[in-house]
């Protein structure tokens, strides 16, 4: 029972709403424009990089936690934050290494779990 008592329910609600809103933007782009999913993905990541680089995205992260870090814009934000910290630590070269270092956990997890999924799952017909 201790687990449920330590949960910040207000934070859960905020994460749910902000994460959902980001996804709604994606859904509107799919329905109302001719953008392919790959382009929407790139738009989300670059938007996150720009907002992260300008220091705006961190307010959204402070407000909504994982609601802001889990969507693709959060990945862009991590890249920007990492690049800035990389420059502070290693100088110019850090602009290139910092972003990927900061996002390394996400990237390696995506490759690892993608591989596991490919081993155990078989592609199937779409239902719709």
């Amino acid at each position, binding site marked *: 029972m201790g687990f449920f008592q330590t949960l910040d329910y207000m934070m859960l609600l905020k994460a749910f709403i902000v994460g959902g809103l980001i996804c709604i933007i994606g859904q509107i782009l*799919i*329905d109302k424009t*001719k953008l*392919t*999913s790959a382009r929407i993905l790139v738009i989300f990541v670059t938007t996150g990089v720009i907002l992260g680089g300008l220091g705006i995205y961190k307010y959204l992260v402070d407000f909504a936690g994982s609601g802001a870090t889990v969507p693709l814009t959060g990945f862009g934000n991590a890249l920007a934050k990492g690049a800035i910290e990389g420059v502070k630590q290693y100088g110019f070269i850090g602009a290139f290494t910092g972003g990927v270092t900061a996002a390394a956990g996400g990237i390696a997890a995506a490759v690892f779990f993608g591989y596991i999924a490919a081993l155990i799952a078989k*592609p*199937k*017909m*779409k*239902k*719709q």
Partner: protein
Amino acid sequence: MNRIGNQTIKFNNPPTILETASIVGPKEANGPLSKYFDKCLEDEFWGENSWEKAESKMIKEASNLAISKSNLPISDINFCLAGDLLNQCISSNFGLREINIPFFGIFGACSTFAESLCLGSILVESNAANNVLCSVSSHFCSAEKQFRFPLELGNQRPQSAQWTVTGSGCAIISKTGQGPYITHITPGKIIDMGIKDSNNMGAAMAPAALDTLITHFKDTGRNPSYYDGIFTGDLGYVGKEILTELALSKGYNIKSNYNDCGVLIFDKDAQDTHSGGSGCACAATVFSGYIFNQLKEKKYKKILLIATGALTNSTTAQQGESIPGIAHAVSIEI
């Protein structure tokens, strides 16, 4: 045979469509035309380990089925005309590599079935052949993979998108027989109106269908009411509406007797197929299954099949090229 008008060929000894065969996948089997197909599969892999192999198996088995239904020994089939949507027509090439009949691989995208009927009837009428086998196939999964996105990506489909029919349709055209007869063919021109959206093939192909339709009427002196049914291959709901309006604006009212194979094959609401069916197998299975049955039962006496094709590939789409369309018309009467 002789050419009449601009681009129509009239057959003096009209070739017979001796027999047809159709095999469809599970989604088509759940559609409204289910009972007309020869074989309905329960699994889109059909026991194979890839969709390409499954598609090859479909065209192979459907071709064999058409031959066995016709009661002709295989040595009496003089030529095979076959095609599909995959690069280098691998479904037909691999599926029919053991069939042992002189083989022409043809490509007209989703219009391939009508193209094969056109060429096959010319072969028969010209005495080059007594019997010709026409086979085509398509598979939703292999087509999505090649033309759009891998299925593993789980992309959403827009409302204008069509659903590639999984299946194979075959017909045997013969010099002698009791009909239905192929009396006229109107091979179409490539028409490109600049549509670029590969999720809206119906709009890209409708102008080509219109051009062939009007040319057919002008060349033969017929009008829409001459036919009991006019069937386009795979314009879907979007393209069907565009063609009906375009034809009306040119003075041809086809509202009462026109339908589209892509509209007929699926139940739009229950099956969530958006704008309807598409693919080589769309016109081929609907013709081989439903329309041929209706001709045999004399429910239709004169029909015009206009299979439509979008002559595009994934490279041209990525390079921002528009989608040229084509449509071939085959007039079939009993």
